[in-house]
């Protein structure tokens, strides 16, 4: 068991999230940086979909009430196991009674903590992911708070020290073309790609909201509701785009500027308010090649780890 001493800005239990229920209005939820989550689980020889703890910004503290082995991936929050610094990308052995403290993220926004054997909370609709808006999943259906306990299986055997390199950050996000080109006009889409966009403080797990110093993207179009999903980029009448993330709703009535390619979506996990990004449209072959490259990276990791576990 782990006890939450300080949850920080937002701490939740996540796995890959829910599929098969979007027609009932159920969001995906799940780790925003699913790639980091997968690496963390693989370093511990867990199932790829085992639940992990998603830590936002830092300022958090956890106490282990049993022995465990952990993997920490994602942004560097200057974490310390008791008084010893630990670094993202590596596995560590934890003894009963030790505390894990996170200071503040400097270059990113989210970190992922996996424990050997995964987090044991009950599955709801085939997933342990916390759905914050609907109030189910995780241990309590809500964000973790002070004195909450997180069920894990003790692991006292030694686990090898293993590390994995995460792919570099990207600030040029690749998109599938808009299905609303005619409605929005090509000049709108051109302007969207020409500008640098800043992440606003109103961003959260539902979506990253963007603004530019000046833009001409305001409009008055309203559409019959259509399905949206993580990666859909909505353009509300204000002209300030929203990139929907894991907790985003299932349907919406705003025109879409495009869809983030699957290989680039995890980069949004590390964007914090004030960060700047750009967009470009790519074809299907480029999108598929980018995903294949990510998959190959994970496959290489699996092969490299095979002899170490």
């Amino acid at each position: 068991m782990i006890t939450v001493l300080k949850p920080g800005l937002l701490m939740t239990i996540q796995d890959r999230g829910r599929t098969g229920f979007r027609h009932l209005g159920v969001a995906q939820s799940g780790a925003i940086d699913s790639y980091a989550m997968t690496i963390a689980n693989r370093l511990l020889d867990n199932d790829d979909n085992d639940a992990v703890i998603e830590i936002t910004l830092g300022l958090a503290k956890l106490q282990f009430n049993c022995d465990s082995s952990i993997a920490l991936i994602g942004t560097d929050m200057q974490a310390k196991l008791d008084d010893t610094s630990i670094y993202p990308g590596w596995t560590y052995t934890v003894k009963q009674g030790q505390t894990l403290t996170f200071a503040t993220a400097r270059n990113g926004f989210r970190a992922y903590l996996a424990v050997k054997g995964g987090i044991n909370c009950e599955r709801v609709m085939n997933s342990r992911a916390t759905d914050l808006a609907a109030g189910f999943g995780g241990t309590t259906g809500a964000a973790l708070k002070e004195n909450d306990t997180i069920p894990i299986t003790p692991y006292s055997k030694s686990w090898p020290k293993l590390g994995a390199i995460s792919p570099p950050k990207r600030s040029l996000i690749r998109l599938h073309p808009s299905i609303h080109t005619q409605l929005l006009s090509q000049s709108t889409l051109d302007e969207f790609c020409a500008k640098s966009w800043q992440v606003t403080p109103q961003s959260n797990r539902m979506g990253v909201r963007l603004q530019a110093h000046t833009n001409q993207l305001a409009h008055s179009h309203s559409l019959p509701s259509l399905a949206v999903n993580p990666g859909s980029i909505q353009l509300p009448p204000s002209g300030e785009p929203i990139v929907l993330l894991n907790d985003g709703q299932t349907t919406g009535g705003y025109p879409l500027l495009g869809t983030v390619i699957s290989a680039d979506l995890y980069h949004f996990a590390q964007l914090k308010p004030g960060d700047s990004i750009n967009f470009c449209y790519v074809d299907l072959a480029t999108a598929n090649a980018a995903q294949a490259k990510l998959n190959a990276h994970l496959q290489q990791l699996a092969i490299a780890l095979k002899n170490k576990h």
Partner: protein
Amino acid sequence: MNSQAPVSISILSSNSLFLDATHLSEDSLMTQKRIWALVSQCKESNAFLDIVPAMNSLTVYLLNTHELAKWQTTLATWWDEIDAQQYQGAHHKILTHYGGEYGPDVDFVADAHGLTPKQVIEKHSSAHYQVLFLGFQPGFVYLHGLTTQLHTPRRANPRTHVAKGSVAIGAGQTGIYPADSPGGWHIIGHTDFSLFNCHANPPSVIQPGDTLQFVCLESTS
């Protein structure tokens, strides 16, 4: 029937396709019935992670990205062949307490249309509604069939708390709040019918394409 109307099927992403039928027909309900029939056919294929109907459109998320082009063609073929009448959803009776403490806005809605509260309740509970699709939050159903005589602009000041089970009218729509939430619709009644239970399978009894009616349990007048 306009079974040969061209439908647009666009690629949204490496694993998703968007079938847009919003431009096809004067009769959006007839189009929606074809969407439901197509949903039913898609389910049987076991090729999709998610099949999400919305307003005169359908988005499918493929299990296998290599099949994107194949499904773009297949969906178009199926659309042309589909018969709107071949889909029959379930029918649900929503037992509803109208008015009084259950429906504090019945008088407001009545006044807005020059009706008595009793007439509002009769008009609301005598219609058969079609479940167009679900969205917004788990279990929230978008219904077709509210008589124009009850269309009422949303409240100027949304309530910060609307109880789960509230039956309400907002502009041209009527619906049921599946969970406690803020809300700007006029509350005319309450039902104990459970729209969403995350521990049940399926979690929502009501599915796109179903029909429902509100059954009046009692009224204030």
